[in-house]
């Protein structure tokens, strides 16, 4: 395996990691407020297609990025309306969001399949640092979305851990009646959390369609939205651990298309002879294995999940 290939693997690790981190960070916000949103896959698809179309139209990746975030927030708003305001089952609503979002994305994007926008996100070589051997390319010569994701991660951590708003959000995720009694609006907090979460997922989708795999094809999200949902559990609902998990999953996602080109043997088996389809199961198997290991290690400890996660709240219900 060449040095360039190895650096390329880690460059891609950071990028795939950013993709799932952004989406998972959004899901983390919603879940900390007590709302499970299984619609991440659909929101990412909607973000990917709308971002791509705005990118085609305007030629500005940033306009596309924020448009995708707005669409993601809007789609998340539907989940908020149905599951938070109306109090319907969060699992059902989220699944409908994924199925409907994938369908709508396919419909909306049917005429732009195969097109390529003129401007995509470009790598941001940070002066002086980008030239450092190995580390320069991996950490200091990435597209701006990577650095934005780091900043957003820090911001989410700060808001959740250090501000009154964060306290209220975490409280509503633990016990809605208590938060309500204190005078915060449960509906407003939870709806806002779900919509901000949707914006993150939508933005992640546009990173996919405007940088990682430029263009739009049906099914291009390919399960990364679901990996993001699993990542929140892996990250124990904490932004810091989420980032570590994102790098781990980013590594597997980056490894899968590259493994074939590496001239290495594992246990006497030539890796390049393994079918790409079979290597494609790697991230998904890893997710299951990791979830099982975490649960095994935590089997005697109380759950760290937000206590009110998935439970609808209706005020003054009798």
């Amino acid at each position, binding site marked *: 395996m060449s040095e360039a290939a190895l650096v390329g693997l880690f460059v891609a690790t950071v990028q795939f990691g950013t993709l799932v981190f952004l989406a998972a960070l959004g899901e983390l916000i919603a879940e900390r407020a007590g709302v499970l949103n299984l619609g991440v896959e659909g929101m990412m698809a909607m973000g990917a297609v709308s971002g791509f179309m705005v990118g085609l139209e305007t030629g500005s990746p940033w306009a596309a990025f924020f448009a995708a975030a707005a669409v993601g927030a809007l789609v998340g708003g539907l989940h908020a309306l149905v599951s938070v305001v109306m109090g319907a089952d969060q699992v059902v609503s989220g699944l409908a969001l994924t*199925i409907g979002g994938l369908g709508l994305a396919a419909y909306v994007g049917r005429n732009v399949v195969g097109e390529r926008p003129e401007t995509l996100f470009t790598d941001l070589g940070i002066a002086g640092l980008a030239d450092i051997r190995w580390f320069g390319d991996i950490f200091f010569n990435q597209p701006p979305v990577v650095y934005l994701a780091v900043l957003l991660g820090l911001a989410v951590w700060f808001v959740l851990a250090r501000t009154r708003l964060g306290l209220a959000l975490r409280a509503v995720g633990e016990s809605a009646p208590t938060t309500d009694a204190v005078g915060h609006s449960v509906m407003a907090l939870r709806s806002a959390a779900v919509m901000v979460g949707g914006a993150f997922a939508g933005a992640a989708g546009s990173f996919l369609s405007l940088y990682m795999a430029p263009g739009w094809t049906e099914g291009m999200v390919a399960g990364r939205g679901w990996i993001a949902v699993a990542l929140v559990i892996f990250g124990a609902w904490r932004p810091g651990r989420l980032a570590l998990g994102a790098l781990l999953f980013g590594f597997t996602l980056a490894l899968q298309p590259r493994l074939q080109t590496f001239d290495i043997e594992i246990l006497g088996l030539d890796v390049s002879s393994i079918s790409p*389809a079979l290597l494609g199961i790697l991230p998904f198997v890893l997710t299951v294995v990791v979830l099982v290991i975490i649960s095994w290690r935590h089997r005697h400890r109380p759950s760290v999940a937000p206590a009110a996660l998935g439970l609808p709240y209706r005020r003054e219900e009798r």
Partner: protein
Amino acid sequence: MMRPVLIRRERVVPATQAVAFVVGIATALVLGLILLWTSGHSPAEVYERMFDAAFMGTDSLARTLERATPLALTGLAVAVAGSMGLWNIGAEGQMMAGATIAAGVAMGADGLSGPLLIALMVVSGVAGGMVLMLGPALARSHLGVSEIITTLMLVYVAIRVVEWLETGPWKDPESFGFAVIEPVPEQASLPGLFGRAHIGTLIALGLLLVFSLAVSRTAWGYELRLAGSSPNTARYAGISLRRKVLTALLLSGGIAGLAGAVQLTGSATRLESGLSNGYGFAGIIVAALALMRPSGVVVAAFVFGAVQVGGQSIQTLGVSSAISDILQAMILFAALVAAVFFNYRIRWRGPAGRESSDDEQAEAGDDALTMEGV
């Protein structure tokens, strides 16, 4: 500021879910109409074509039944797990696993007579679905790992394994270079009913009836529902929750696997990565609309079968078949919202208008199945 408050109705509208379903269909059709109209199609023409393709004439009805069959089976699979509060959202993958094992058996035993081979394939299909469910089921029952994530992850695994089989080990040597698996033997096709409909429909209806009776009339079914609705009570009654979770999930996986075998022997000519065709995912909507009740699964599967046949037919009008996915999701959303309105009434309250102090969270709290994570 006035704000809406939802208050549970004391008298519930009769047949709530059936009405909600109808409202859902109507709402979805209206929203679909707007979508079609804004993208330059004639909604009347599109809907007429969909209706004709799904209902007019025996061939059309047969096609609807052909599609309703896997939907009913995957819907039942989801409902079996759902009747104890579990979510099998990986029926899509278990269907693939079932079809894969059934196809493998057919390759090895193609000398057998038709009925024997079909029986063997159906049984191995059930086994295939169960095998894929085994990991998630054990993780859920013994470690409390969310079955939602694990069952879904294995969908991608199952589909990619079939893609691998297509390109490599099971590639048909007579396929002129195309990456396809050899067709299932001639004698291994389910007897037809009329048109494209086959007796898989009767198998599905029979299973739904059996499950309906088992859940409502047997001690096993009672325990299953009890374990789902109030685990603590079930525990005091000496019911093993672990075993119940395990059986419900394995059964669910087995039925989804059966759906794969039925699809392979009834409709498909060969195992292919597109065989499950979203039936497993649509089955979740079917079961959710049916509130996990077998009778509801029958109705919802039929309607969704019709929507899908209609969605295919409008491609000749230049309309994307993605419309049918959108319609299905919108039916579910609208029905969810409608059901809330049927069970609750809205009262507008001013800031000082709090009449009740006993705020209660609509949660099962301690008495719900606990799990790590989701």
